[in-house]
């Protein structure tokens, strides 16, 4: 059964939640500001030509800055990145196969444009995935959903996200206990047979539905009438528009001018 890796994943989710409850300056930035900046960042990074490399480098400052100022350990991010990369790697690896035209010469070394675009895909993957992970690690699910509602996301959807998140751990735990029960009773057997699997999933589903019914009763008992009221108190502070504005300015500059190449040329001029 594929649970060992999954267990690690759950621990990671719990850890993300802990990270999100720190009180660093980054964590005090409004969730709306962080969401907008993250989306902008991803959009700008993905808007580069597909074989762009050097111009992408300055963009690493965004995740690195959040990670450092928000005290998010790099190790846990890298572990997640390793899990997230395979599909992009698999599809991207075909680029060098299908596109062998030489594109870049470094002295005697010729690099094909396929390899350039493959490397570029990997860079983007690193940038966008880390930005998304950092968004949660710096806001947390509750503040993020609050921010989403205030950005215009339907309340029903935000509530759905919160409920899903609330019962994730509980159901994962139930699933883990049930799979462990099966494993203990079938020593030496690798994996679950279809029939056992269906009954396992079926019972898990019935239990989930029974739980949903009990939750509904508990909600009704406290006056639930179909509409969840959420209270938003955090006001925007001056730092929030500054955060969005500052990064937007940087993204714009780094998008229009290739800062890394300019730096390189400057250095080489200095050396030569």
């Amino acid at each position, binding site marked *: 059964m594929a649970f060992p890796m999954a267990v690690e994943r759950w621990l990671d989710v719990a850890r993300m939640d802990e990270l999100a409850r720190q009180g660093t300056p980054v964590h005090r930035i409004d969730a709306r500001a962080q969401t907008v900046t993250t989306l902008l960042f991803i959009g700008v990074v993905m808007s580069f030509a597909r074989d762009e490399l050097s111009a992408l480098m300055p963009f690493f400052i965004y995740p690195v800055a959040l990670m450092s100022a928000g005290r998010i350990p790099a190790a846990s991010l890298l572990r997640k990145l390793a899990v997230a990369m395979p599909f992009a790697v698999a599809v991207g690896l075909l680029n060098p196969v299908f596109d062998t035209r030489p594109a870049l010469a470094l002295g005697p070394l010729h690099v094909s444009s396929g390899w350039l675009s493959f490397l570029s895909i990997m860079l983007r993957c690193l940038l966008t995935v880390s930005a998304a992970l950092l968004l949660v690690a710096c806001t947390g699910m509750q503040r993020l959903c609050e921010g989403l509602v205030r950005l215009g996301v339907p309340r029903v959807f935000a509530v759905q996200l919160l409920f899903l998140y*609330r019962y994730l751990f*509980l159901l994962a735990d139930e699933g883990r206990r049930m799979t462990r029960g099966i494993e203990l009773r079938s020593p030496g057997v690798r994996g679950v047979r279809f029939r056992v699997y269906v009954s396992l999933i079926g019972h898990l589903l019935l239990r989930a539905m029974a*739980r949903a019914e009990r939750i509904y*009763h*508990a909600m009704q*008992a*406290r006056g*639930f009438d179909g509409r969840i009221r959420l*209270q938003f108190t955090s006001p925007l502070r001056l730092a929030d528009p500054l955060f969005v504005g500052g990064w937007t300015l940087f993204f714009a500059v780094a998008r229009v001018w290739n800062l890394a190449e300019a730096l390189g040329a400057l250095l080489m001029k200095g050396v030569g």
Partner: protein
Amino acid sequence: MPSVIEIKDASYVYPDGTQALHAVSLCVEAGEAVALVGANGAGKSTLLLHMNGTLLATQGEVRVAGVEVSRLTLSHARRTVGMVFQDPDDQLFMPTVEEDVAFGPRHAGMAQDDVERRTHEALARVGMSHLRMRPPYRLSAGEKRAVAIATVLAMAPGVLVMDEPSSNLDPRGRRRLIAQLRSFEHARVIATHDLELVVEVCTRVIVLDGGRVVAQGPVRELLNDEARMLAHGLERPHILRHQHPH
């Protein structure tokens, strides 16, 4: 003054045809603590769900503070009767403890100031103010139980109805719960298998068996009747063996 809860000949049949209650009658007076005991499947939980209108009796009637519970009076019943469910995870569904305690007052349409005041008071009452910002799934079983009680206290009910409040608690959590239950001025209906808790908290016991009330009376008198307790799948609590009631 009417009884806070008055049930007369209430019967309930589940949609699948199982009859869970047979003409149950009982009264709960203001301020008293009543225990509801009986073996698994005796109908305790079903009976509790009638007290705030989650289930409506198929026959007979249920009155809360003198008002008959029906589809039209549900909100009255739910404001008057605070229900603490068996699994706190079913009751704590909001992202933080504070949000969860505020859920009831907020859905009663109170102003933000009142919501905050009630939330703070309720959390302070169960000694959980320090957990305000924590997500419920990170709490211990005892903390979850205390917060679940706070969510109900915040609605200022007249009656507290609890289903197995001491299940899953460690000895310290259980002691704390018993002390709290004794301190409440509300009428209390406690469905439980924990007979020692009954002895310490309640004054009256109602015994259910097969969906029927088979006995009711003062705690010590009834629980000391070993033959009768065993006949209904229960036992005489140890705590009473070491005391000399006469």
